[in-house]
Structures are given as structure tokens and as C-alpha cells.
């Protein structure tokens, strides 16, 4: 059990973080809070990937002198994938902010309830 909890604590942290973000996306009524939730959600996934790459006893993936052994370096692939995911997250946030500005221009509000009221 302790192995389940402590030996895999990285997964627990990411699951909790992801649930926080997911709840903010689904439950909050303010559009900016939803966007923040989306960012937390994406960060949680990034954390998960990065934690895959870790090897105990490994150092950062820049080759040093001498022969290269795979066990000496942490796994570079998740880092590469997450550079992409970070960029995607930044881009999505940028577009979402632009859309929020458009919403603000039309309804002068970012509360979902008020917007829905003003539409009806």
C-alpha cells in the first residue's frame, strides 16, 4: 500500500491537480476562471509527462564526455513532447483571451449567467 501511495506519488499529484482544473472548467461560471482551470488542466498533463521521463540516478539529458549509457540520462522524449504541449497551451490561451475580449465587447461582462440573461 505504501508503495502504491508513496512510490507513485507523482501520479497522485497530477491526478489531484487535473481534477482541480477540470472542476474549474466544468463548475465555475466565470469565463476567465474557466480559462484558468484549462491552464491548470494542461499543466497537470505536462507534469504527468515530465514525471514519466525521470530515472533514478539519471542526470539531465546533455551528453557529457565519455561513452553514453542510456541509464545515465533521464528520458529526453517526454521533455520534447511537452515543449510542444506547452506551446499548444500558450496558443490556446492566446486565442481564448482574444475570444474573451470579443465577448467583453459585446456583453460587457464575463459572467456566464449575466451573458445568458442578456441574450434572452
Amino acid at each position, binding site marked *: 500500500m505504501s*508503495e*502504491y501511495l508513496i*512510490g*507513485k*506519488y*507523482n*501520479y*497522485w499529484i497530477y*491526478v*489531484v491537480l*487535473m*481534477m*482541480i482544473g*477540470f*472542476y474549474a*472548467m*466544468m*463548475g*465555475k*461560471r466565470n469565463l476567465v476562471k474557466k480559462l484558468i482551470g484549462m491552464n491548470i488542466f494542461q499543466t497537470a498533463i505536462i507534469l504527468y509527462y515530465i*514525471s*514519466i*521521463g*525521470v*530515472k*533514478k*540516478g*539519471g542526470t539531465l*539529458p*546533455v*551528453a*557529457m564526455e565519455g561513452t*553514453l*549509457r*542510456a*541509464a*545515465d*540520462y533521464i*528520458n*529526453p*522524449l*517526454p*521533455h*520534447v*513532447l511537452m*515543449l*510542444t504541449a506547452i*506551446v*499548444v497551451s*500558450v*496558443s*490556446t490561451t*492566446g*486565442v481564448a*483571451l*482574444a*475570444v474573451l*475580449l*470579443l465577448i467583453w465587447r459585446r456583453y460587457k461582462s464575463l459572467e456566464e449567467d449575466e451573458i445568458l440573461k442578456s441574450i434572452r
Partner: protein
Amino acid sequence: MKIFGFLVALLTGGLLIYGIKDMPKWGDPNSPASLHVTPRYIEKTIEETATPDMVTSVLADYRGYDTLGETTVILTAGIACLLLLRRDNS
């Protein structure tokens, strides 16, 4: 809506936790992810690309096409912001 959101988040979290059981331990040097594809990236990076930084060599060479896609994503975001907030010649 809040309760619904909470339940959905719990359900998703539960699903993910259910999957944790069969995952390798944190920092396990013998996990499949460390053994299958990446050894080549680590061991051959100097030999094949003359680039000591493995993240750079994977990012720009082995999986360079992903990076092209990712830069395109950035361009998309920039042009999209301009499309949404500005007129063409301003």
C-alpha cells in the same frame, strides 16, 4: 451545475487513479518508456547529429516534424488573434 462539474471531475480522477495501479514506480530506470525508443536518442545523439543536447536533437531532428507543427500552432495563434481583434490593413 457545480455539483455536476464536481462529480464529473471525481469520475475522471477515479478513472485515472484506477490506471495508476499498473504503472511503473516513479523514477524506475527499467520502465518500458525508458527502455524502448529513447536509448537510441541518448546513445547515438553525438554520433548521428553532433548535438550533445538530446532534447534539441530529438526536438529538431528525430522528431523535427512535430516541431514544425508546433511552430505552425504558434503562427496559427498569432494570426488568429489578429483575425479576431484587428482588420486586415491596420
